[in-house]
């Protein structure tokens, strides 16, 4: 029987295992050093905040794995031998495979800041990071977070629930400035500030300062300000977690290099999820995609190929979502921080400045291209269909109610949005 080994039991590896099992009787081994069972990485924050326990963030009951004949192995892969097709674990044990899927995910990115190894300085990605954060934040009062992105804002929310004051250093002029257009970035920034986070824009970390015990006591920023703190969260991003591949035959750059079938340079070895880097992205996106949803799509795709149905990675219309404290964010299609030359955007914000929508459409042919939503839920199926079938912006605006996914009785804004759109169109004309 064919043996398929999967390194990493995150969403990518698990999705691959499940989809292989649907179509094949092969032996499947799911390997992870992190935890025995798959848990939802995106839910780590809720464990720290006391919304859920570890067992609540496991997407499948523990008997699921045995029932589906997916063997779980909790061990750290130290080395990959491509010629013998074996994995070597930290304890020297070996495991042979016929097919290997590398889905080893990411680790927090550090930029060799002075003091980054002091006690109380950390990133947040793994279960072990969460345990460390639990230990590092006992009885403290003040934290600094570096990096204005999604993990940073989650960390800020987590710390505030424990009464720890947070200063948030953001390189850009607004929160998540390399992704969100100005208005959205400002709206989110305002929301984050309202929750008591001390947001400092255009401010970067220069150095982390320690005390005599090797524990962080302050940070110094590029502008020279010294901020006293007992904890530093480094959340400027993540990078592929592939150091165990050093010295192997597998070609890597930042991540494991793959083609559109998610194949590495070695036969029967694939890479998916956060750790994979496309030599050339099949749909023109960035070559490394570190998102839950793309990991899921890659896992499902690679399973087809492995089960004999050659299938290229074609992820369809881009979508993503997040939540900043109480503010939900959804996006469909590509909304760039600054519109491209051929794009026009229509931005609507509610009176209180707590919700907004941004529609992106083509200047000439009026094709609807993308949308950002903050504080309003949109129906994925409808948005996907509109973008895919190249509906016009006018159709989208006129049928907006069909795309609303807010719970019943929530205030609706379609009329208001339509009026504002007509007004904008007149001004443009």
């Amino acid at each position: 029987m064919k043996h398929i080994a999967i390194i990493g039991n995150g969403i990518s590896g698990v999705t691959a295992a499940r989809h292989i099992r649907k179509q094949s009787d092969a032996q499947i081994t799911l390997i992870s050093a992190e935890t025995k069972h798959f848990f939802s990485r995106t839910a780590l924050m809720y464990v720290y905040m006391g919304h859920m326990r570890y067992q609540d963030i496991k997407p499948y009951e523990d008997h699921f794995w045995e029932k589906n004949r997916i063997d779980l192995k909790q061990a750290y892969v130290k080395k990959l031998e491509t010629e013998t097709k074996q994995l070597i674990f930290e304890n020297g044990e070996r495991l042979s495979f016929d097919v290997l899927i590398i889905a080893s995910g990411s680790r927090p990115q550090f930029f060799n800041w002075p003091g980054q190894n002091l006690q109380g300085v950390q990133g947040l990605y793994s279960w072990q990071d969460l345990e460390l954060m639990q230990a590092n934040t006992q009885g403290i009062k003040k934290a600094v977070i570096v990096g204005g992105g999604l993990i940073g804002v989650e960390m800020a929310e987590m710390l505030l629930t424990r009464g720890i004051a947070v200063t948030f250093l953001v390189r850009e002029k607004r929160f998540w400035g390399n992704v969100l257009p100005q208005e959205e970035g400002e709206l989110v920034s305002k929301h984050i500030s309202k929750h008591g986070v001390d947001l400092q824009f255009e401010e970067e970390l220069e150095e982390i300062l320690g005390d005599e015990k090797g524990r962080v006591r302050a940070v110094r920023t590029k502008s020279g300000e010294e901020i006293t703190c007992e904890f530093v969260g480094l959340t400027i991003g993540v990078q592929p977690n592939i150091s165990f591949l050093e010295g192997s035959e597998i070609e890597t750059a930042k991540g494991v290099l793959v083609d559109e079938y998610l194949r590495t340079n070695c036969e029967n070895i694939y890479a998916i999820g956060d750790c994979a880097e496309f030599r050339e992205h099949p749909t023109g996106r960035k070559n490394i995609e570190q998102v839950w949803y793309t990991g899921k799509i890659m896992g499902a795709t690679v399973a087809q190929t492995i089960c004999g149905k050659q299938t290229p990675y074609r992820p369809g219309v881009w979508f993503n979502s997040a939540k900043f404290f109480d503010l939900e964010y959804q996006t469909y299609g590509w909304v760039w921080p600054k519109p491209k030359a051929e794009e026009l955007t229509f931005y609507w914000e509610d009176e209180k400045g707590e919700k907004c929508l941004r529609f992106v459409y083509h200047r000439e042919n009026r094709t609807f291209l993308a949308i950002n939503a903050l504080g309003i839920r949109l129906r994925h199926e409808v948005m996907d269909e509109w973008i895919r079938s190249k509906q016009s912006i006018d159709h989208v605006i006129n049928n907006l109610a069909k795309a609303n996914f807010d719970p019943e009785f929530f205030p609706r804004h379609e009329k208001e949005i339509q009026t504002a759109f007509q007004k904008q169109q007149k001004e443009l004309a």
Partner: protein
Amino acid sequence: MLNQLDKDISISGGPPVSINGKQKVGTVIGFAGLLILALATFNLDFPHKTLWLSLSLGCIALGISLFSYGAYADKSAGIKNDGVYFKSLSSRGFWAWVLGIVLTGFYIVLYFFPEYLGLKQAGENVGLIALFDPLSKALSGNPASQWFVYGTLYTMAIIFFGIKYLLKYRHNPYQRIRTLSVIFFQTGFAFLIPELMARLNSDSFSLPYYDLKNIWPLNYYNFEQYRVDEFISAGTVGVALLIFGVLSIFVVTPILTYKFGKRWYCSWVCGCGGLAETAGDPFRQHSDKSTFAWKVERWVIHSVVVFVVVMTTAVISSYLGYDAEKYWLTKDAFLIGVTILLTLVYAVIFIFKRQELKKDAKIAATVYLAIILSLIAIHYWTGDSSIFLFEAESLRSSYGFLIGSVFSGVIGTGFYPIFGNRVWCRFGCPMAAILGIQQRFFSKFRITSNGGQCISCGNCSTYCEMGIDVKAYAQKGQNIVRSSCVGCGVCSAVCPRGVLKLENGADTGASRYAEKPIVLFQDGK
């Protein structure tokens, strides 16, 4: 470190769990109100009962309100589950057990030893019940009973913990309106109207105590002989109420459930649901989400339905038999009617919804139908009007004891802090089971999963009070169509990615149940 993974992270330490100043004051005032009730229970004879009762209830109301205000008012509008698993009361810690024991004890005394609360068979009440006499007399004109005391406290709990819930979910109109609805139905229909109706009673005219929204089989005693006799003897009004009771089952319920799902009752109207959603809200995360618990649920709740059907059929047929001239419905016609109805329900489900039934459901439904029909057949042909294999009266009293008192009260509510707030609704309520069958097979209601947006975080499942593993559906892009779902809407509220929406628009066909892994891979194909 790795071998400690399965442990709760809260073991290693401490987020702030202390309460703020307003909450402290609220706690003191609320417990002062409870203390008055406790003293009354121990037969401290308060001289000015109206004053002390008002003071006590006023303190409880103010205490809960102030506590809630302190808890939520200065926090921004949004989900408030911080520290749920760190606090003793909401994570099955010491205070949860204390509360569970106190509540359970209260129910045991209430149901089985009301004399300890001061109930006197003859003469004036004493103790706690006597303290409530002024309020009872003001409403119905009669002295209080243990049920009046219970009804008053129950209604207070729904109103004031309802206010707490309103503050907690103030950002969510669905939760606000739903909570106002349960407060309204409890206060008006369950409490005030029946009490005021009792005022109409005289020597020549008497209506049974009737909470109009309490429908059979939740109201399992509605068609007992003494009530039916009272309805009939009360003339047009009484007969109208009796007819309303029957129409509620066969007309009102199916139509509303078809349009809105069982939530129209279970989380908008019902008193049991009302208490669970308000006072029980801090314990919703304790429902067991395992597939094993789901299996137990299906067997237990449907067995209760069979029990209540057999019991009610036996009870009604026994008095129809005794007094053949008194009722237009004869025993034979009644039994044949029940047989036809049950066979019809069975046939319709098997003809139209066969593909939706799992094997165990088919077997159970067939076996249960066979049992009921053979009981009716034995009863019919042996012709002994008092026998239904079991004595009708003993069936009635054991149902009342086991299901009506022990299950719904002692276990269902007493164990809120340990097993969650919907144990009765999930495992025991026959009304919920019947509405559930309608919801599963004959309703537009479902919870829609939003395409591929689920991140499997588990908030929806954790906070589902009915123990539905919501994420198991959502992460497949499948709608949630479950008979047990009471439509409280909390899964949709706690979802951090806008994935879940309660809906009753068109879409009753196969796609209501289908997996729709849209855009999961392969360009949507």
